[in-house]
């Protein structure tokens, strides 16, 4: 009796940790007022930046950064701060030159992190009290939690730019992302009522339009079948198979190609799925799980992929 219950609780927590966060505006980082991001001089240390854990003062240009967040790792390399990163967590698999170690961002070992003698630790999730533990050791820690919106994702890049002395590169990257995304949104012309199902795993967990990833689809004018789910699902509902089949979405996006080995073939083999429009009409779009879970520069690539699929669907229709 106790065991299954315990597991239920553990799982509920695991999902809460893994899934939420990005849905809660209260935990997001806010743009700094005035000083930090506005300064264009790269060497303006000490500088105060704002993360999910509040204002963080960085005394000098960090040269020994440990990144426990795959998104932050991508951000840092994209703004030219890659050679200041000495260690990244075990999930930081992009870009290829990222110094991936066996450090874990989910179960951080403070002693192992301190062993790298970092002058800045960037992390996303906070299990326990990582931030204060690091501060007790005199290590500056900056938390950048899952971004609920693109604006917060941009701001995190700006904050990282300011924190590492790459303010201009960060601003340029954000500008590039903004214009690329604007171009994709402007060019989007999906057939009216093009619907999609976004699959997080092979038990039909999905996302609603309230989530970071869901908002990307909304920007392109696509209709999310998971939005039929009422409030209270936290943005990541588990859909009924029969509902998905009955909705018969035009497009199916698979964000579980790595985790769960899903593909157009495995979807077609599921009981009752073979006759779906997306299956027969080539509307299954395999995504890179990693890109789909992060809120870094590759969001543009993800949006491009979604946009291409929508365009193909529109021309086929």
């Amino acid at each position, binding site marked *: 009796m106790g065991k299954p219950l315990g597991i*239920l609780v*553990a799982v509920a927590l695991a999902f809460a940790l893994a899934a939420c966060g990005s849905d809660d505006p209260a935990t997001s980082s806010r743009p700094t007022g005035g000083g930090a991001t506005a300064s264009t001089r790269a060497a303006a240390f000490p500088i105060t930046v704002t993360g999910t854990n509040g204002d963080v003062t960085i005394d000098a240009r960090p040269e020994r950064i440990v990144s426990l967040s795959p998104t932050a790792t991508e951000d840092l390399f994209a703004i030219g701060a890659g050679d200041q990163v000495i260690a990244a967590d075990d999930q930081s698999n992009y870009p290829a030159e990222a110094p991936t170690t066996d450090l874990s961002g989910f179960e951080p070992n403070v002693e192992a992190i301190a062993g790298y003698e970092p002058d800045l630790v960037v992390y996303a999730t906070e299990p326990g009290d990582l931030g204060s533990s690091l501060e007790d050791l005199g290590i500056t820690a900056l938390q950048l939690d899952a971004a609920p919106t693109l604006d917060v994702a941009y701001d995190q890049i700006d904050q990282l730019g300011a924190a590492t002395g790459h303010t201009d590169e960060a601003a340029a990257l954000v500008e590039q992302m903004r214009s690329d995304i604007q171009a994709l949104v402007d060019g989007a012309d999906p057939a009216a009522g093009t619907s999609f199902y976004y699959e997080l*795993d092979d038990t039909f967990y999905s996302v609603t339009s309230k989530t970071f990833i869901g908002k990307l689809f909304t920007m392109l004018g696509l209709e999310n079948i998971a939005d039929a789910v009422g409030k209270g699902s936290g943005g990541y509902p588990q*859909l009924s198979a029969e509902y998905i089949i009955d909705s018969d979405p035009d497009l199916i996006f698979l964000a579980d190609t790595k985790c769960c080995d899903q593909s157009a073939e495995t979807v077609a083999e599921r009981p009752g799925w073979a006759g779906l429009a997306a299956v027969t009409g080539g509307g299954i779009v395999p995504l890179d799980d990693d890109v789909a879970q992060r809120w870094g520069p590759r969001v543009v690539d993800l949006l491009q992929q979604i946009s291409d699929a929508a365009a193909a669907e529109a021309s086929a229709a």
Partner: protein
Amino acid sequence: MSVPEAAVRRRLSARARATALGVVVLVAAVLIGLLVGPVRIGAANVFRWLFSFGNAPPGMSEQQALILADLRLPRVIVAGLVGASLAASGAAYQAVFRNPLADPYLLGAAAGAGLGATIAVAYGPSGALDLTVPAAAFVGALLGVGLAYGLGRSSLGGRATTSLVLAGVAVASFLTAVQTFLQQQRSETLRQVYTWILGRLGTTGWDDVRLALPSVALAIATLWAVRRLLDVIEVGDVEAQSLGLNVTRLRLVVVIAASLATAAAVAVAGLIGFVGLIVPHTVRLMVGGSYRSVLPLSVLFGASFLILVDTLARTVIAPAEIPIGVITAFIGAPFFVVVLRRNGGAGGLKKRVRSASGSPPDGREAA
């Protein structure tokens, strides 16, 4: 033996009534399970579909026939098999361990299944996932129970039931530790393992029916066949032995059968708590403590209970689903407390578990 004839007849008719009720409830549960879902199909359509044996009757879309044939029907069947397995093995464990709190996961079946699933997800070949994970969970559950049984038997000798339960606790902790360690090594598969363990009736198909049916049928048939002996063994090892029963062998057979049923249930549905506790106890409160009634009725009501709970799981917040284990605990725990209070608390419950069929008090309770 010396029970008056009238009492015997009364008990028989009470049992017949309860069995009839169980069958009616099961049929109703199956129909409700087929009729209700996030997609509206319409009662008339469902009945016409049933009577045309799965061919889409006129006026019904192909999609609807597909949903009934490939999703709802196998899901109802699997829910029924799992509910029957958990309830029957719960009743059997409670008998052979003489413990009202014994449940199907007691001897490390859950921990073993979890470890098996984790190994398959984290290290198994990619691709053939659909079958390797449940199969690994099945093997893991049997290994967990086998380990607990082996350890419990070889230690402490005399106090067989206590040492078995303690060995089960130790094995479960050990296997859970191994599982946690492996998950840490492969943290990217963490979520998948948990989703899997939490329950997967949402993805049930005919494959799961084929996977579960043979083991469940074999296990329940075995438990059904020995149901009278469960009454004897529950009185006590010494007493049962003096009646000429090979207690050690019977306990082994019952533990193997119950574990087989549990392993099959975990393999197709993940961990679902409370069914193995509340169903047998509720049945006991209805018809008394004799396993001649408790076991068959646990099978019937266990199947109905889980079919109905699964129907709730896919309709309450449709088109989203609620993990089924959450509902069994959410409904099960308060319901159980109500039943318990109305029937004289834990003392009354324990008396019912222990009172075997031959003893006179049972005759009165059944009336």
